[in-house]
């Protein structure tokens, strides 16, 4: 689990969960409880060492109010832009 997740083609999966979570003012513990995972799993997700299932990715996306493609990408992601934020 300590390896960076890669696609079948060997591409790295990037995410900006940490930045988006901090922008929302959520602690790791609170974020973990809200998406139904252990707090250590949040660390793995934020470091890009674990790629979530589609269900978990959608839960994260809903909680952070960002589309999935704004949170996960095969290219390095820029810092979250509040203009991109959806109104939920």
């Amino acid at each position, binding site marked *: 689990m300590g390896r960076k997740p890669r696609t079948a083609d060997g591409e790295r999966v990037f995410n900006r969960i940490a930045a988006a979570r901090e922008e929302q003012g959520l602690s790791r513990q609170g974020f973990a409880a809200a998406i139904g995972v252990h*707090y250590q799993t949040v660390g*793995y997700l934020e470091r890009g060492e674990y790629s979530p299932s589609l269900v978990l990715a959608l839960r994260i996306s809903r909680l952070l109010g960002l589309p999935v493609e704004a949170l996960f990408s095969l290219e390095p992601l820029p810092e979250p832009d509040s203009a991109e934020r959806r109104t939920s």
Partner: protein
Amino acid sequence: MSRWSQATERNRAAVAKNAERILADTTYDRLRSRPGLIAMVATYVVTTVAMPVFWLAAGTLAGVVSTAAWFVVYLFLRVAVRSQADLPDDVLDERMRSERDSVYVGAFRLVSTVVFLAANAAFLAVAFGDENDSITFDYEAVSAIYWALLSLLLGAPSLILALRMRSTDGG
């Protein structure tokens, strides 16, 4: 609801409650740091190797004491990895389930390699050893084999997990 279903339900609730406590535990986080996990793995390997040696070379009393020491180390190893290898699906999140499942592949490889090497060493010792040397399966010899195998089988998943886990501090 039948008595059997009630008992199953009670057991499931008890496991879930215990799992919740283990997964939220921070008392033993020092064991879960990277140096702590490496130390636990090293101590477990040492006690697993030492235990059969004590049974064979120092007699029953020393064997029992070394087995008790191994058991204490085994309990601490389980605490260090939050018993993740033994918890059921419904109390683990998707990463932990996937990690637990892949740990059993590593554990199988570890156990099969050790058993393969030990069996071959025993075979070669019998095939090419001194014919006057006899192998006696007395209580101590059987205990040494039994506890060494048990230690390997019970500890392998937690050992692999400990080697793969990141420090709690970094998690």
